[in-house]
C-alpha cells in the first residue's frame, strides 16, 4: 500500500487537486448555484500563496491570509453575483476566471507572466492534501444527509418552493458560493505546492473542462462523485496510453456519453447495481433535481434576475 502510494505519488497528487476543484464546483451546484468562481479562487489561491511565501512569510500565516482573503473575495462576489441566475451566473463567473487569467498574464513582475510562478517553497505534501480532501469529503457527506441534505435538495429543485418552506435561499446560496471559492483557493495552494509551478494556462478552459469531466464522470450530486471521477480521470491516461494525443477526444466522448445516458454519473451505476444485489425494491438513486414542469423560455427570461 505504502509502495503503491510512493510509486504513484505524482498522479495521486494531481487527482487530489482535481477532486478538490470538483468539490468546489459541486458545493455550489448542490445549492443550485452554477458558478465557476472556484476556478478564479484557484488562480488567486495559487498566486496569492506563492507571492506571500516568496516574500518570506511563514507557511501557516501565508495559508491563513490567502484563505481568509479568498473567502472575503468570495463573499464579495457572492453578494454581487448571486443576483444572477443559471447561465448568466455561469458566464459571469467564467468571465471572472478569464479575468484572473489575463491579469496573471499582464502582471508579469508578480506572477512571472506566461512562464509562470516557480521557486516557491512547498507548504503541503501529497499526504496533507489527501487529509484535506478527506476532510472535505466528510463535510460534503455530512451535508448530504438529514436536514441539510433535504434543504440543499429543495434549493436546487425549486427555489420558490424552498423559499416557501422557510429556507433563506439567498443566504444559503451565498454560503455555498463562499465555500466553493474557499475550496478553489485550497486547491490552488495545493497545486502550486505539489507541482512547484503555476502558469496562467492553469487558470482557463482546459482546467474547467477537466474538472467538469471529473464531476460528471463520478456523479454530479453524490458526495463520492468527485473522488471517483478524479481517480478515474487520473488513471485513465495509463489505460488510454494507446490513444496518445487523442486522449482529450476520448475523454470528451466518454463525458458526452455519460452526460446523455447517465446523469447521475458512475456512482449512480454502482448504487443501482448495489440496490439490485440487495434484492430490495428500494430505490437508491442519488437525489437528482427533478423539476415537475419544464420552465418555458418566457419564464426563463424573467428568471435572469431574482
Amino acid at each position, binding site marked *: 500500500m505504502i509502495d503503491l502510494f510512493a510509486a504513484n505519488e505524482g498522479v495521486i497528487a494531481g487527482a487530489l487537486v482535481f477532486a478538490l476543484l470538483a468539490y468546489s464546483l459541486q458545493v455550489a*451546484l448542490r445549492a443550485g448555484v*452554477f458558478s465557476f468562481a472556484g476556478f478564479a479562487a484557484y488562480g488567486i489561491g495559487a498566486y496569492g500563496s506563492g507571492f506571500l511565501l516568496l516574500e518570506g512569510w511563514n507557511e501557516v500565516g501565508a495559508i491563513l491570509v490567502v484563505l481568509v482573503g479568498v473567502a472575503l473575495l468570495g463573499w464579495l462576489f457572492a453578494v*454581487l*453575483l448571486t*443576483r*444572477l441566475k*443559471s*447561465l*448568466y451566473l*455561469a*458566464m*459571469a463567473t*467564467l*468571465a*471572472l476566471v*478569464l*479575468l484572473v487569467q*489575463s*491579469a496573471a*498574464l*499582464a502582471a508579469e513582475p508578480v506572477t512571472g507572466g506566461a512562464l509562470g510562478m516557480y521557486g516557491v517553497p512547498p507548504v503541503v505534501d501529497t499526504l496533507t492534501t489527501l487529509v484535506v480532501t478527506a476532510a472535505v469529503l466528510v463535510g460534503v457527506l455530512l451535508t448530504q444527509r438529514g436536514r441539510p441534505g433535504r434543504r440543499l435538495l429543495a434549493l436546487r429543485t425549486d427555489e420558490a418552493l424552498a423559499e416557501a418552506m422557510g429556507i433563506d435561499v439567498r443566504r444559503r446560496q451565498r454560503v455555498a458560493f463562499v465555500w466553493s471559492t474557499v475550496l478553489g483557493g485550497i486547491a490552488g495552494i495545493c497545486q502550486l505546492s505539489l507541482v512547484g509551478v503555476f502558469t496562467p494556462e492553469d487558470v*482557463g*478552459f*482546459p482546467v*474547467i*473542462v477537466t474538472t*467538469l*469531466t471529473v464531476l*460528471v464522470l463520478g456523479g454530479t450530486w453524490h458526495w463520492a462523485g468527485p473522488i471517483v471521477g478524479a481517480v478515474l480521470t487520473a488513471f485513465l491516461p495509463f489505460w488510454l496510453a494507446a490513444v496518445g*494525443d*487523442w486522449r*482529450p*477526444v476520448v*475523454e*470528451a*466522448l466518454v*463525458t*458526452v456519453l455519460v*452526460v*446523455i*445516458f447517465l*446523469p447521475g454519473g458512475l456512482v449512480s451505476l454502482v448504487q443501482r447495481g448495489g440496490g439490485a444485489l440487495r434484492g430490495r425494491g428500494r430505490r437508491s438513486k442519488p437525489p*437528482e*433535481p*427533478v*423539476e*415537475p*414542469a*419544464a*420552465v*418555458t*423560455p*418566457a419564464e*426563463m*427570461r424573467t428568471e*435572469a*434576475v431574482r
Partner: protein
Amino acid sequence: MLGQLPNAVALASVYTLFTLGLTLCWGVLNVLNLAHGALFAASAFLAYRLTQVVPGIPLWALLPIMAVGIGLLSALVQVLVFAPIRARGAGEHDVEMRTLIAGVTVAAAITTVGAILTEHQPFALPREALEVTTFDVLGAPVTNVQVLLLVAAVVLACGLLGYVRYTRDGRALRAVAVDRRAARLMGIPVRRLEVQALALSGALAGVAGLFFALYLGAGDAHMGDTLLLKAFAIVILAGVGSLGGAVVFAFVLAFVEAYVGYYAGADLRDVAAFALIIVMLLVRPTGLFPRAIGQRA
C-alpha cells in the same frame, strides 16, 4: 485615429457573424452552444488542411465548402448530443446545465483535433487562397479582406434577419422559442427546425472563422475561446434573442476594443473587456434592450 477604422470595422464584422450564430441558438432556441467557438476555429484549421491537400484552392471555392462543412458539423452536434440531452432532460435547468457541459466537452474535442491537425502550431492560410491587396480610402489603408468581411457580414446579417422574420420556417422557429410544446401541437416539426437553426448557426461560424484567419493572417486551434465569451457579452448587452441589437453591439465592442488596444495595449484590452462584461451582467442582466419573448429575433 482614422487608420484604426478599417480594423475596427473588420473586427466588428467578425463579431457580428459569430454572435448572430450564437444568439440564433440561444435567444431563439434556448440552446447556449459552447461549442460555437470551437466550430469557428474548426473552419480555420480545416480550411488550412484543405489548402494543404488541394494546393491553390481559391477563396471562392473555400468559402462555400467551409460554410456547408461547419454547418453540417454543427447540425451533427445537435443531432448526436444536444437533442438526446433534451429528450432525456428532467427539466429546463437540468437540460441547460447538461447542454452547457456537453458543449464545453465537444469544444474540447474539436479543439484537440485541431491542435493535432495543425501540430500545435499557429498556422497561416496560403497566399494563393486570396492575394491580399491594399488600397487607400480617404487616407486609410484598406485591404480587400476587410472589404469582403464587411460585405459578408452585411449580406448574411440581412439574410438571417429576413429568414427569421419573414419566412415560414423562421416564423415557426420563433414559435418554438415561445413555447416548444404548443409549437409541436400546432404541427411544427420542432426537431427539424432545431437542426436547421444549428446548421445555419454553424455556417455563420464557418464563414466567420475562415475570414478571421485570413484577416489576421494566422490562426490557431484555440482562436475561438475568447471570442465565445465576447460574443456572449454582446448577446447579453443586446438583450438575448435580439438579432439587430447583436449587430449594433458587435460594432460597439469592436470599436472600443480596437481603440483601447491601440492606445492602452493588448494586455489591458482583454482585462478591460472581461471586467466590462462582469459589470454589465451585474447592472443589466437582461440587456440594454430587453424584449418580450414573442418579439425576439
